[in-house]
């Protein structure tokens, strides 16, 4: 660090650093707070387009961090939506060792590198923090008259292969869930998957009766609930608090039908230990803030704070699980 200070010829970065160090001291934090602080704006890379689920979460984090003045430098969201996340992950690979870039992920973090044989996957990056696990529900249109899972299975079979399921993208979360459903209920080949661009559009197409069912996240279905969309069952181990009356698949005798979308933060590989500690502290504050608690309960997400070695283990498990799912669909070979 001394080296970099010497190299910097302009006074401003020096002053910022001095000032932020001063603040740390002034606050009287007894804990050994990380010695590293961002000295440049932090690139907050989002592996999806503007306005999507990941984008919303990233901008919410930006809001919470800004309002609480937790970072001496701004978080600047940058959308890199190309190639179902490939563009964003390759970008992080190219920023190896740079502590001023972080990535907010979805599950294409696991599926895209496997499917596209990218030179990057979770092991090439630094896991920082997991903030939430988004949940999934099976939805139908209220006009369909379907009230429970038995009705659903009957209705799918009655349509003789013409049943449609809308979802976001191809070979991503929604299609994996659809495939899990088909396997569990012996509906293989009876459901046609229709890919759309975003969860909001998927929900609209169900509400408008253009597809027969969806596996939307709760927040995507809420605008049409309870008027036009009806949740049938949840892909969670416990009932979702916001949808108390909706059974889980586990209760319905299909305990393997559990699926989450992780919302986590990753940094490029090889960043300084101090920087990792600073980010961990930052997102720990965020995850335990009232704003985050409030948002996650309103949107029926599971707040799930995790960091350090357990997070690495979680990623490894998820990676194996996703590879298995993809192999089960015949999309991936050993």
């Amino acid at each position, binding site marked *: 660090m001394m080296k970099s200070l010497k190299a910097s010829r302009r006074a401003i970065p020096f002053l910022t650093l001095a000032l932020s160090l001063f603040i740390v001291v002034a606050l009287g934090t007894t804990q050994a707070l990380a010695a590293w602080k961002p000295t440049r704006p932090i690139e907050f890379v989002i592996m999806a387009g503007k306005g999507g689920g990941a984008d919303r979460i990233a*901008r919410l984090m930006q809001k919470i961090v800004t309002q609480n003045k937790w970072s001496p430098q701004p978080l600047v969201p940058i959308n890199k939506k190309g190639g179902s996340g*490939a563009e964003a992950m390759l970008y992080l690979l190219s920023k190896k060792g740079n502590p001023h870039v972080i990535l907010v992920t979805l599950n294409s973090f696991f599926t895209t590198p496997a499917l596209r044989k990218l030179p990057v996957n979770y092991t090439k990056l630094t896991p920082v923090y997991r903030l939430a696990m988004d949940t999934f529900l099976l939805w139908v249109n209220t006009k369909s008259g379907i009230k429970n899972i038995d009705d659903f299975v009957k209705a799918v079979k009655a349509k003789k292969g*013409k049943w449609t399921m809308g979802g976001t993208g191809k070979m991503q979360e929604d299609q994996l869930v659809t495939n899990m459903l088909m396997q569990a209920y012996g509906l293989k080949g009876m459901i046609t998957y229709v890919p759309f661009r975003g969860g909001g559009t998927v929900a609209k197409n169900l509400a408008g009766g253009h597809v027969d069912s969806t596996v939307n996240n709760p927040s995507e279905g809420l605008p049409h609930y309870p008027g036009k969309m009806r949740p049938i069952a949840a892909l969670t181990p416990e009932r979702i608090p916001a949808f108390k009356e909706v059974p889980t698949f586990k209760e319905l005798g299909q305990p393997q039908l559990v699926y989450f979308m992780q919302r986590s933060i990753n940094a490029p590989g090889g960043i300084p230990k101090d920087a990792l500690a600073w980010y961990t502290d930052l997102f720990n504050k965020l995850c335990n803030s009232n704003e985050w608690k409030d948002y996650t309960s309103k949107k029926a997400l599971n707040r799930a704070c995790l960091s350090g070695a357990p997070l690495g283990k979680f990623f490894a498990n998820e990676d194996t699980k996703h590879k298995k799912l993809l192999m089960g669909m015949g999309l991936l070979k050993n």
Partner: protein
Amino acid sequence: MEILGNLFYGLGVAVSPQNLLMALFGVILGVAIGAMPGLGSVNGVAILLPITFAVPPTSAIIFLAAIYYGAMYGGAISSITLNIPGASTAVATTFDGYPLARRGKAADALVTAAVASFIGGTISIVLFTFFAPPLAEFALRFGPPEEFAVVLLAYATFAGLGGESPLKTIIATMLGLLMSTVGTDIVSGSPRLIFGGITGFYHGINFLVLAIGIYGVGEIFYTLEEGFKTKERYQAKLGVAEILSTLKRLTQCTSTIMRGSLLGFFVGMLPAAGATPASFMSYSIAKRFAKKPEEFGKGALEGVAAPECANNAASTGSMLPMLTLGIPGSPTTAVMLGALFVWGLVPGPRLFVENAEFVWGLTGSLYIANTMAVIVAIFAVPIFIWMLRMPMTILAPIILVVCAVGGFSPTQDMFDVYLMFIFGAVGYIFRKLDYPLAPMVLALVLGGLTERTFRQSMIMSHGSPGIFFDFAGHPIAAVLMMVSAVLFVLPLVPMILKFRVSRAGTSS
């Protein structure tokens, strides 16, 4: 009249000093952002979003809506003065706006754009105020087949508008469609045409990169060759007398503006379609109905009024599905929708009841922001006219820098800046060879949507094209397909007639 009561309540919310100030700031920033090629309302709203964290959601949405609104006005400015559309919504404005500017009538064009935008916006806001919930029901009926039919209609209205050579128009359109397939394919999930993994192609070819390249950079190349004959090009004047005479002439465009505004609102309201096809369709329809269609493309005021009223009407229209269905009608409303979630609001019919202050405060502020925007835009005209009087030797480098920033900002990728300069060369060659540029841009803008909705429809119907002509199952799609078919055939009728007449002539 419950709605009138709500509206007055909303106006009351909107005229609180803080909200008025937010609207004014938003409009001024919006006009500036819109006038900067490449910044545009999407990036503007995204960049300025953090500013709104400090104020309550109602003030924040008023601010963002004002930016969106102002940017629609501002977008016309760079289209008219520099021939660089700052957003896809302003492409059609270049067709007649720039020829007018070259004839020294930039001021007329700018005033026309502002006034048409104001009328389009106002009509749209009134429709929004009184019919939002039932219209949301209507918008829900649009699935992939209906959306495809709308896009086809946009192409159909545009057919027959190309240059003198239909073959060149077809080639330009095909090139645009080809470029729209670059990047991730949503149906198979695979990246296409990335040439062995060039990362810059993963996100596809951004519209702005093409538009700024072929219009902006191409224009500079072209001007370099022509020499800098600035004096004859821009002798624009603006005074009260000029504004009044323009307003007087605008009264002749009343029916164009009315048609464009209604069309803009309805097309804008449909999720996915948005303001760009609306502005193109409005322009084409204006030309078809015009008394002197031959003036279009050479500097007709109607040719500026038509797309401008439509894109403003559409921008309000696109807020409707955002608030009532939670789906964005345009890229900018997608960012605003994200903001809604950040504030902890859930869009949908219940928003109108549970967050009445928010919804009606926004509605009220739209009336106010629209009025502010027209005033700001007209006051800004002299600034841009002054800018145009700058010698080209100074203006050209500035434009090039602005273009580079514009190419960089949407994706923050230097690759796109290089690509933009390549497109600049393409634009120059196209102009030399007399190829029309607009069909290529339109095809790139609509190509992705066309392909996506078509393939989604085919998946839904299990491969049967009958889904587009199913009067029982998809009546809206079927009717729109019929209209498109008629519009495609219409330009051929005079050709066939001429052919028969000439044959009759030779045989006798």
